[in-house]
Structure formats: structure tokens, C-alpha cells
């Protein structure tokens, strides 16, 4: 069954030529010379005033990277990237050293205003925004400002850019950095380890529920630059934090690289909720320009009863290569992955998740919805694996795809690996498998079947997405209504 008109219209509203964030900020930038070598890495490290061990860490990653091969297993095609034709460091000139908001270049503040990102605490306190969110704004290679730092500090929560954290909390960074995504994990993660510039650091101490939403907003502005974001979130025993990430870039003819690494660590009874609204420039309708989004995101449920939940709404990027994963190490730990990925134009998405069950009684849930339109390709690739000792591991996976038009592709590549008899895995990719009871309940109340199906399936996703702050989730809100009739599997 083909897609219904309403869905087609909704997807059209976020088509690649409707990109709203394509403007450029004209601001004087300081850049490292183009290309990648040990001197560039020393330059970045020196710029950030890093300790010696950090530089060594970067250099060993770089040497390792030189020996690695570009991964080619994903279902994406792009011309070979010339890593020597990229600027690895670009920062607004006015940003030499941390500043208070009043000292930040007004042009930068205007940029964030235009993007709808609140950076002024007073405005938020004055009730301009409905909810209070602490924001770390990253512009190309540097963090411009982090809001509500003091207030968070009162609660014991550390929220700052990773560059600052390396200087101010070296012991914490050293203990956890690379402990979830090892330096040698994969080609792009190793590259990131060598050249990462900025990102966020969050530390939630034992027993603390973070009093507000934390958020980082990534903006690539400068031409020919790569953005190498590094984010590290640690949630100690019984802590809780909800973190949201947003990203945009100007409309340019050339492709730009965003190779990020995000590491989450949840100790006993801790919970981390990580949400992404990915809206990088997707390229034009002919596939010119756009961001290559090659990202390694992984959460480690290190302690018993911990929980990590990934939510992603993917509408941007020319190419997406990203698999937010959960390592369910602690007994009774839980992993969740909710994803809506919409591809238009000539976008290529190869995304999904990995749920690695190592501890006892661990459970995971995967809900993924992919919608392809235009001439795009949208692949769900997910791995669910239960280790021999992961007794009573449970997984439920549901992935649905929808094609709009006849020039795009939707693909599903699940890897299901069971290594003990108490594991219970269910993988579904059809709408017809919805619980008969739930469907009956809706039909009883006069809801037509089609609507009832959409209601039930979307119920999962909606629950999570509705918690995203409104100002970040415009696209997400639009997508929620998209129903699943016409799903092809």
C-alpha cells in the first residue's frame, strides 16, 4: 500500500529545499592550517591549553588512525574524503579564552537567536521560554558559552565544555574518556580521538537528579571545516540526567565532515536520557553539499539497574552513519532506542543501534521508523546480541519503513545474536503484528483501524518525543503525526 497524502505532505514540508538554517554567520575566524599531521594536533592541544597526557592521548590515536582503513560496510556511497583538505580547527577570533556572555561577540549571539537557541539566562528566567534548559553552544571548534553553570554547580552537577573539563576536572576526564568508545574503536572514532575540538562534559554525582534539561547546540559555520565533537556524560549511582543535542549548518556546495564521539556512563541505578534532533544541512535536491555525519555514540550501563535511553529524530545530513548503542553490563540494566529517520532529496542514512546484553536480566527495546522520499536511501542496521552469561536477556525490536515515491530505497538489516537459552528476542518489522488486544480496544471505541494502528505504534515514540523541549523539536512534532500505513517492513 503506498503512503497516504497526509504523510507525503508532512514529509514534503521538511524536504531538503525547505532547509531553514542554511544562513551563514560572517565573523572573523581563526583557523589552524588545512590538513592533518602531528603539528596540527599539537596546535589544537595547545589552543585548548591541554595537559601533556591529553596531547599524548591524541597523538597515539593519530598514529593508530594512520594504520586504519575507511569502513565500507555501510550502505552509503560518497567520494573518497581528502582528509588533508579540511580545517581541523576553526574558532571565532573573539573567542580566545572563556568569556562571560556579555563578552561574547554579538554576531554569535544573533546567530543563536536566529536558530531559536536561548543563551541568555535572564530571558529564560523571565519566562520567555516555557521550560528552563541549560545550553552549551558549540560554534565550529569551540564552545561559545554554557548557561546555568552556577545553578547546576549548586546541585553538584558539572556541565561545561569538554575543553574546560580537561583543564578543570582532569581526573574525571582521564578516568572515563575512551572507556566506552576505545580510541581504536573504528576509523572515525580514532580520528575524533586525535582531533576532537569541543563538545560537552556532564557529571552528575551520586544521588542527584539533574534539576534541568541539559543541552548542547552544535553549529558548523566555517567553510571546509570538519567538526569533531566529543561528549562525555557520567551519571553516578542513582543519578538522573536528560540531555538534548541539536545541530545545524549553513547551506554550502561542498560536503563537510562531522565525526563525533559520544560516551555515556551510567553507574548503579543511574539513568541517562539522550535525545538528538539532527538537522545538519542535507545538501540540495541534486545532492550537492551537505554534512557527512559519521558518529559513534555509545552508552555503557555499567552499574546494576541502570538505564540508558537514546531518542533520535534524524532529518538532516547528506550521509548519516550512526548507531547509538547500549552496552548492558550491569545486571537488570535497560537500554532503549527510539528513532525517526526521514530522508529526502539524495540523502543517505545508514543508522540503527546495538544492544549488547552482557549482564543478567537485562532488557532492551528498539523502535525505529524510517521514511524515505525523493531519491534517498534509508537503512536501518541494528544488532542485538546476548552474551552467554546474560541470562534472561530480553529484547523487543520493531522497525518500520515507508517509501514515498518510486526513486528511493528502504532497507532493514538486523543482526540477531543469541548465545544463551534464556535470552528472549523478538524482532518485528510489520504493522500487522500490533497487539490484537490493543487494536481491539481502540476499535471498540470507534477509532478506525488505520488510525488505531498509527496510534498504537506512535504511542511508543510519542511518549519520548513529547518530552523534547518545544524549541528544539519542531521537526519532531511534525513527524509524530506521520502514520505508518503503507509500511513495507
Amino acid at each position, binding site marked *: *500500500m*503506498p*503512503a497516504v497524502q497526509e504523510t507525503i505532505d508532512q514529509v514534503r514540508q521538511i524536504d531538503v529545499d525547505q532547509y531553514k538554517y542554511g544562513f551563514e554567520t560572517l565573523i572573523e575566524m581563526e583557523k589552524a592550517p588545512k590538513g592533518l599531521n602531528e603539528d596540527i594536533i599539537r596546535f589544537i592541544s595547545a589552543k585548548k591549553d591541554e595537559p601533556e597526557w591529553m596531547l599524548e592521548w591524541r597523538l597515539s590515536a593519530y598514529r593508530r588512525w594512520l594504520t586504519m582503513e575507511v569502513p*565500507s*560496510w555501510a550502505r552509503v556511497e560518497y567520494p573518497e574524503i581528502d582528509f588533508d583538505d579540511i580545517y581541523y580547527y576553526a574558532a571565532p577570533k573573539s573567542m580566545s579564552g572563556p568569556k562571560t556572555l556579555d563578552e561574547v561577540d554579538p554576531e554569535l549571539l544573533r546567530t543563536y537567536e536566529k536558530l531559536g537557541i536561548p543563551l541568555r539566562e535572564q530571558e529564560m528566567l523571565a519566562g520567555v521560554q516555557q521550560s528552563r534548559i541549560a545550553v552549551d553552544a558549540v560554534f565550529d571548534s569551540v564552545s561559545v558559552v554554557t548557561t546555568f553553570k552556577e545553578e547546576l554547580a549548586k546541585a553538584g552537577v558539572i556541565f561545561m565544555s569538554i575543553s574546560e573539563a580537561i583543564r578543570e576536572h582532569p581526573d574525571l576526564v582521564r578516568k572515563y574518556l575512551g572507556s566506552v568508545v576505545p580510541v581504536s574503536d573504528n576509523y572515525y572514532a580514532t580520528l575524533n580521538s586525535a582531533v576532537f575540538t569541543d563538545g560537552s562534559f556532564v557529571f552528575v554525582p551520586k544521588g542527584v537528579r539533574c534539576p534541568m534539561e541539559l543541552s548542547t547546540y552544535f553549529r558548523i559555520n566555517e567553510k571546509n571545516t570538519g567538526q569533531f565533537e566529543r561528549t562525555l556524560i557520567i551519571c553516578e549511582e542513582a543519578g538522573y540526567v536528560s540531555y538534548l543535542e541539536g545541530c545545524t549548518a549553513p547551506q554550502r556546495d561542498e560536503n563537510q565532515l562531522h565525526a563525533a564521539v559520544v560516551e555515556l556512563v551510567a553507574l548503579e541505578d543511574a539513568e541517562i536520557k539522550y535525545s538528538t534532533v539532527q538537522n545538519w544541512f542535507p545538501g540540495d535536491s541534486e545532492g550537492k553539499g551537505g554534512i557527512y555525519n559519521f558518529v559513534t555514540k555509545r552508552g555503557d550501563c555499567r552499574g546494576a539497574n541502570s538505564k540508558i535511553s537514546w531518542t533520535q529524530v534524524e532529518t538532516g545530513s547528506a550521509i548519516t552513519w550512526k548507531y547509538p548503542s547500549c552496552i548492558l553490563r550491569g545486571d537488570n540494566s535497560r537500554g532503549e532506542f527510539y528513532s525517526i529517520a526521514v530522508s529526502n532529496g539524495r540523502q543517505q542514512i545508514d543508522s540503527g543501534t546495538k544492544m549488547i546484553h552482557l549482564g543478567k536480566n537485562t532488557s532492551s527495546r528498539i523502535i525505529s521508523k524510517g521514511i524515505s522520499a525523493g531519491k534517498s536511501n534509508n537503512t536501518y542496521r541494528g544488532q542485538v546480541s546476548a552474551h*552467554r552469561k546474560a541470562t534472561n536477556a530480553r529484547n523487543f525490536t520493531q522497525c518500520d*519503513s515507508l*517509501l*514515498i*515515491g*518510486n*526513486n*528511493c*530505497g*528502504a*532497507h*532493514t*538489516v*538486523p*543482526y*540477531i*545474536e*543469541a*548465545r*544463551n*537459552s*534464556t*535470552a*528472549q*528476542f*523478538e*524482532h*518485528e*518489522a*510489520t504493522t*500487522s*503484528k500490533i497487539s490484537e488486544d490493543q487494536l481491539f480496544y481502540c476499535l471498540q471505541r470507534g477509532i478506525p483501524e488505520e488510525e488505531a494502528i498509527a496510534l498504537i505504534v506512535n504511542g511508543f515514540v510519542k511518549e519520548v518525543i513529547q518530552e523534547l523541549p518545544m524549541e528544539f523539536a519542531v521537526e519532531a512534532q511534525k513527524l509524530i503525526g506521520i502514520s505508518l500505513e*503503507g509500511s*513495507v*517492513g
Partner: protein
Amino acid sequence: MNVQSKKPITAAEQSLLDRYAERRKERQGNASLTALRDGLVHEFDQTGLPGRRIETWHYTDLRTLLKFVPEGFSPETGASAKPLLSDAIVLSARVGGQDSAMPEGMAVSSFNELLTSANATDLLESKRPDDFIGRVNSIFVDGGSVIDVSKGVKLEKPVELQNAASGGHLHTRMSVNIGDGAEGTFIERQIATDTADSFVSSITDLTVGKSAVVTWIISQERGDTDTHLGQINIRLGEDARLMLFIANAGGHLVRQEVHVTADGENSDFALRGVNLLGGDSHTDITMEYDHLVANCVSTETIRNVVFDRARGVFQGQIRVAQIAQKTDAKMACNTLLLSDEGEFFSKPELEIFADDVQCGHGATVADIDENHLFYLKARGISDSKARAMLVNAFISEIVEDLENEDLVEAFEQRFSEWLTRHA
């Protein structure tokens, strides 16, 4: 994706290279055939056995799994096993000769004869870069049959094709052409007549003509130490109907590939598979289905029961081309993992380029449902009996799809014997 760099040569690789060198001296083939084989061996020398870096071989890494290849070649034994169905026409897959009266409208000849003809190289050329089975078979193939069922002929009796090995290498190929509107049931049995180790590659190229109706059964009955690399390549014509039933209950290292191309509209393909896995065996069913035309239906259901330290793999890939609108494809893989040391890997994959299709896949892995067990035990049935009943029920559902009562009975018996030995 399919690039493998040169690694140290394994014992199995060396053994295969040595066997070829020996065979090359003994064998008199035409020059083009020898050149083709030399080329394939040269390529094999470069790439070696497929390992986990090659996507389609990720879970069946021959570099580590294939530890040993026997030295000799299996002598010809003919079709000597008792047929599964008493009324079957029994043939040796290897010699292509007839052991009982051939029905009218069916012709059988030797594959070796076909190989000496001018177009031999076309027969053996492999189109897929990751087709290791095709290559190894092309390098060594010696024996096989060519079967032709004429247009409109309805074979009343099932045809049983016995591919027997009694230790050593065995490499056979069958080329089967079912004419338009013809009907028949074929049972391909992969048998061990001996406990000596064997290394077998067996390829069947099956063309099902327009409106033809075929049931094809592959029964895996090799010994506990045998390696079997099987492949069936299927072309489905317009309105053709094919039921492919794979019964894996034997062998040590087994991979059965199924490659289906639907190139006539309205065809109907059903794959039913039962994998009974025990000991320290490794069994893999890998299916690829290309929907190249509109309005085709396919259903695949694989049921697996894993005991001991056995490992099972199911990879299914359904590809729907842009023009293959109104495709209806459903794939399910259900596994009962009954041992904590057993493993099962499934990868039910969809690749869809048409927007008006229905494709679904499902995969489950679990132990026997405690509620079901409780239900039976509450009625005074012992634990082991109850478990056996539930396992039987789990696979019977698939066997029953064979519809033919004699076949259902034969396989239920075969499976039940296997389960009695292993459970």
C-alpha cells in the same frame, strides 16, 4: 564490504590448493575449462577462504571453521540408500544415470558430458564476488546430472536424487530444467554412506518454467564430521510455483545457500526450513531473493532447534527492485535455543526500492515457553516428554506445509529419530 586482504594461508587452504594441483595433472578437460579453473585457483590463492570480514560470510567464517579438508576423493557409490518414499524414482545425483525406470517426459544425462561441450565455461562462471561455493565447485566439479522435464509433463512419482559421499572430496552439480506447465516433486538427499570425513560442494541450478509447479526438498543427512557447502540457484518463470523445503539434520559444518530470481510475474515461492542442530556443528542457511518483476509472492519460514554446543545461522535477504510493485514478501525465523552453550544468529534483511509492496520480517529466539510446559505437566506429562512434544509441535507446523502426506510422514519420522538421539 567484500574485500579481504591477504592473510597467512590456513591448512585447509593449502590442502585445497594441493588437491587442485594433483587433479590438474590427472584430468583431461578442454583447454578453456582448464584455463577457467586455473584462473579461479589463482584467485583463491589470492583471497583464500571467506572470513568474517566478508558480510555474507560474517557468521560462517570458513577461515576459522574449516580446520581440515580430507585428502582423497570420494569413490562412486551410486544410489544405494533406501529411498525416503517407497514409490520414488531413485537416481544418483552424481552419475546422472538412471537406477530405475525413467518416467516419460523426463530426460537425464551426465553433467560431465555437458562440461566437455563448448559452452562449459558459461556453466561454471560465477557472477557474485562473494560466491565461494560456486568457485570451489567450479574448480573441482566432477560429476552431476542434467535433468529435463518436458513441457506440460506431470510427474506422478517423486524423484529422489541421492548425492552420496563415502569420505573424501565430492563436488557435484545438477542442472534442472522444469518445462512450462510441468509438475513434479524432487528430493535432493545429501547422504554419507560412511563415517569417514568428507568435504562436499553441491550446486543445483533449477529453472522453473511458466506455470510449472515444483516441490524441491533438500535433505541434509551427512555425517557428524562432514563439511557440506550447498547452493541452489533458482529462476522462477511467470505464474510458476515452487516450494523449497530444507531439512538440515546432519553434517558438522554445513552451509546451504539459496539464490532466487523471480523474472516472470505472479510467481509464488515458499521456503520452509527446519534446522535441527546438535553436537558442535555449525549450520547456515543463507537466502537471497531478487524480485525483479511485479506481483510476486514469497514466504520464508525457518524453524531452528539448537541443542548442545551447536551454532546456527540464518541470513535472508529480500531485494525488491523498483519495478517489482505489488510484491508480497514475508520472512520469519524462529529459534528454540535449548542449550546455554548453543548459539543462533539471524539476519533477516530487506532491501526495498518499490513503494507499493508488502514486505515483513520477523525473528524470535527463545527457550520453550514455561506456560506451555506447565500446561502439559499439569496434565501429568513428564518434563522430558512435554519438552519433546513442544519441540515436535514447533517443527511439525513447518513440515505440514509439505502437504503431501507421505512426505510429511517421512520427515516427521526422520526428525523424530534425530530428536530421540539428541534430546
